[in-house]
């Protein structure tokens, strides 16, 4: 069976052949064992894939995932009139920070993240018991945020703080 015929067998399987050609390939499949075997292999592969896409979840909290989207939207809107665009996506920065912290956390050893906020700010070091962290600094307000992926269900605070925290 030549390449062209093999690909037609596939198109037959996918319902992509014109009616006349489909009839031809249908009769070929009935009499040619090689063509039938090829069709069976393609069919098995197709069946194996459908519905078996990897189930993978966003490895960030809702708030952080969306905050990055929101900040990028705001940044793009603010710079809409400016001709030059930054070369690196804001997401890359966050992802790198996550990768560093996440990677070290996976080693289950004490980890240390150093974020240098630039000439005006001293380096910030974050060591985590486990999990991941993001850091953010607003120079103008003099505020530094370290967001920790401490599981919500472990509850440093609870849903009813008045009852449980005081």
């Amino acid at each position, binding site marked *: 069976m030549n390449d062209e015929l093999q690909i037609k067998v596939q198109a037959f399987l996918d319902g992509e052949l014109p009616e006349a050609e489909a009839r031809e390939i249908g009769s070929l499949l009935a009499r040619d064992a090689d063509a039938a075997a090829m069709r069976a292999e393609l069919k098995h592969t197709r069946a194996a894939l459908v519905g078996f896409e990897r189930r993978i979840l966003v490895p960030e909290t809702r708030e952080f995932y969306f905050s990055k989207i929101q900040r990028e939207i705001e940044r793009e809107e603010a710079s809409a009139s400016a001709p030059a665009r930054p070369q690196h996506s804001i997401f890359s920065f966050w992802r790198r920070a996550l990768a560093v912290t996440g990677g070290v956390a996976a080693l289950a050893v004490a980890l240390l993240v150093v974020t240098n906020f630039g000439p005006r700010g001293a380096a910030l070091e974050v*060591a985590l018991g486990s999990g991941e962290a993001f850091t*953010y600094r607003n120079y103008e307000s003099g*505020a530094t945020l370290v967001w920790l992926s*401490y599981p919500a269900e472990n509850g440093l*605070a609870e849903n009813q703080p008045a009852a449980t925290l005081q």
Partner: protein
Amino acid sequence: MKLNSLLVTLALFTAALGFTATAPAADLKFEAQLIWGTSEGMPADSKLKPADAEVRKKLASLPLKWTHYYEVNRQSLAVAANQTKKSVLSDRCTVEVKRLGGDKIEVLLLGQGKEVGKVTQQLPRGEILVLAGNAPAENAWLVTLKRIQ
């Protein structure tokens, strides 16, 4: 007479130098708060009060989405040079502040007695450090540390 004056001045100057050299460095004073972040109002019967305006303003400058911040607990800490002070903000949340020299401090956050994270940073007067994370039902807990002196 002149010699006496000189000796007295010298003695005073030496005493002043000695006092300066041996006097303990002033404590750094901090205010630690445990804050509850939510986008929903608190129940009417809650005893929590909104976090103070200055802290809310600082939080608003950070990429946090919550619209309300309530103060759960507030503690003051005076930390001497090279010393560590602990502040229990709730049954589950404790923060330890260690002075490392100058404005530099090490902040250890403990959740249910276990280390959650340790942050080392310079914290000049007026600045705020916020350690935060998710709480159930899309709320957040925040531990703020403000250098007040």
